[in-house]
């Protein structure tokens, strides 16, 4: 596999903490005890059973983008509190603690990078920021992602990982569904591909807007993808859900996604599909097809 590897000395302090020698972690899939270092090197995919553990947004960029290079767009956009919302804890406080713990201003990062030489507009949810929920900033950034990709004439790759709407922004978060899909609809007219990469979990308002409208929908193995969360469905129908319900394999069987792709093959697959769907678009330095 030919993705760029970062030298451990380049890791920031927060990454180092969980990266010491002799530290082990249990695989969520097969319960094998694995050196943290080995899991890190395989981008959190278990070498024993292939279980995909959560991978941070920066590590995803290292995995997918040429040399991990990424020019971020609109990083300054920050959440407001339009409803002055509080559920015991104020939304402002929740934002502040999310920003502190996730080291990012909001739950969406967008920008420009390349995948095997194909220039792409790249967006990714930051699930650690309030469950990747979509409020006004997320909606605005995704809208700008599609708008800018239209004007720069490059494909869109969007990594989905979201629990859905940001309830603390109330109806305005619902409106982001309309706004983003409207932008996607305009982007479609340019006949440049949109790849929706579905990670664990993708539910609610994100699933029910742009996430399943990719020209190609690709999911990681065993990701939870659905409109309603399993708990809501169980409460509604008052019965237990079958094993594997709303998982990637279930969606593939029911015709909702094109492919299930291992994280470790994602970069190659995306490049291959771009070579079919948008071969004439801008190429940057790097391997040529």
């Amino acid at each position, binding site marked *: 596999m030919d993705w760029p590897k970062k030298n451990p000395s380049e890791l920031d302090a927060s990454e180092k903490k969980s990266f010491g020698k002799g530290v082990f972690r249990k695989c969520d899939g097969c319960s094998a005890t694995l050196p943290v270092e080995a899991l890190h090197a395989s981008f959190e995919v278990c070498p024993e059973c292939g279980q995909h553990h959560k991978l941070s947004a920066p590590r995803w960029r290292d995995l997918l983008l040429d040399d991990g290079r990424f020019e971020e767009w609109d990083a300054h956009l920050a959440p407001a509190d339009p409803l002055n919302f509080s559920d015991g804890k104020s939304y402002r406080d929740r934002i502040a603690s999310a920003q502190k713990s996730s080291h990012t201003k909001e739950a969406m990062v967008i920008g420009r990078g390349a995948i095997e030489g194909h220039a792409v507009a790249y967006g990714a949810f930051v699930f650690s920021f309030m469950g990747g929920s979509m409020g006004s900033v997320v909606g605005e950034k995704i809208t700008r992602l599609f708008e800018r990709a239209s004007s720069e004439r490059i494909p869109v790759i969007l990594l989905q990982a979201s629990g859905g709407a940001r309830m603390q922004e109330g109806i305005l978060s619902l409106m982001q569904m309309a*706004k983003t899909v409207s932008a996607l609809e305009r982007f479609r007219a340019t006949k440049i591909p949109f790849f929706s990469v579905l990670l664990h979990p993708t539910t609610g308002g994100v699933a029910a807007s742009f996430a*399943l409208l990719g020209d190609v929908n690709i999911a990681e193995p065993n990701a939870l993808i*659905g409109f309603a969360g399993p708990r809501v469905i169980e409460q509604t129908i008052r019965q237990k859900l079958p094993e594997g319900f709303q998982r990637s394999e279930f969606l593939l069987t029911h015709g909702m996604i094109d492919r299930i792709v291992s994280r470790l093959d994602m970069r190659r697959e995306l490049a291959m599909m771009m070579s079919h769907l948008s071969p004439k678009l801008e190429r940057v330095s790097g391997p040529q097809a």
Partner: protein
Amino acid sequence: MAAFVLPFEKPVVELVTRVRELKKAAIESGPGSDRALEHELKRLEEKTGRLARELFATLTPWQKVQLSRHPNRPYTLDYIETMMTDFVELHGDRRFGDDPAIIGGLARFRGKSVVVVGHQKGRSTKEKVTRNFGQAHPEGNRKACRLYEIADRFGLPVITFVDTQGAYPGIGAEERGQSEAIGACIAAMARARVPIIATIIGEGGSGGALALGVANRVHVQEYGTYSVISPEGCASILWKDNSKADEAAASMKMTAPDLLRLNVVDKIIEEPAGGAHQDVAVASALVEAGIASALRDLETLNGEELAADRYTRFRKLGAFVA
């Protein structure tokens, strides 16, 4: 239909009922038979309206939510019957089935052909079940999507009525792609090159509501609501206690005046004294006037401009620090 009265409605319902009875008596005693009675009646009607308005002015958001769900409230079919003619219902999504939770078809509105789509709740227990309480499966949303495309192809305006707690969360709904169905509805509305007018006539619940809500003009009736999740759902997730639905309803700013302030709706449609269910004919006339005036506003725009108008409308929604 059996009258159902919410506790807080009681004084208003009593007033409205008394006026209605007097009116009936006046009509029975013949036209012009008693000028004094007619005059008195008019005075009483005005007073009732004023009183009802005063009483309802202090309703809490949670009480408004209950009004928006009132079992006697007019539903989509009531509005179609009162404000449209030549309705031809069209069925099915051409993929799996027909979902009675969403109805739609062709109709004539003020003499012109339109496509009409709306959530439909049931009246009787049996019909409530058949219509799944207005909670659509993917088939309902795909039928709506198909109707938007018909409207686009034949250049007909789209009139929608939003009235759902939300799209249905169930096993079959997930198997058949509820998410994609809603996304596809939003996309179809976004690209349509015809005017679209949506009116929230009851509950506007989350993605299920939005599947009928991406319009050039969005109206909400005075006691309609629109929210990203039901107050019960919000309370259960954020407060971890679904008995806090009243607090959640207030926090989410889901009533008509809130929605107008947030630019999520363009106009509030007034309701008759005591709410739409106290006088369906008047309620319908008011909704109709709203739709007609919105269509008039959009008359000069061509297809491209109509899609652009919708884009601009939704593009600016949201609040953030730039």
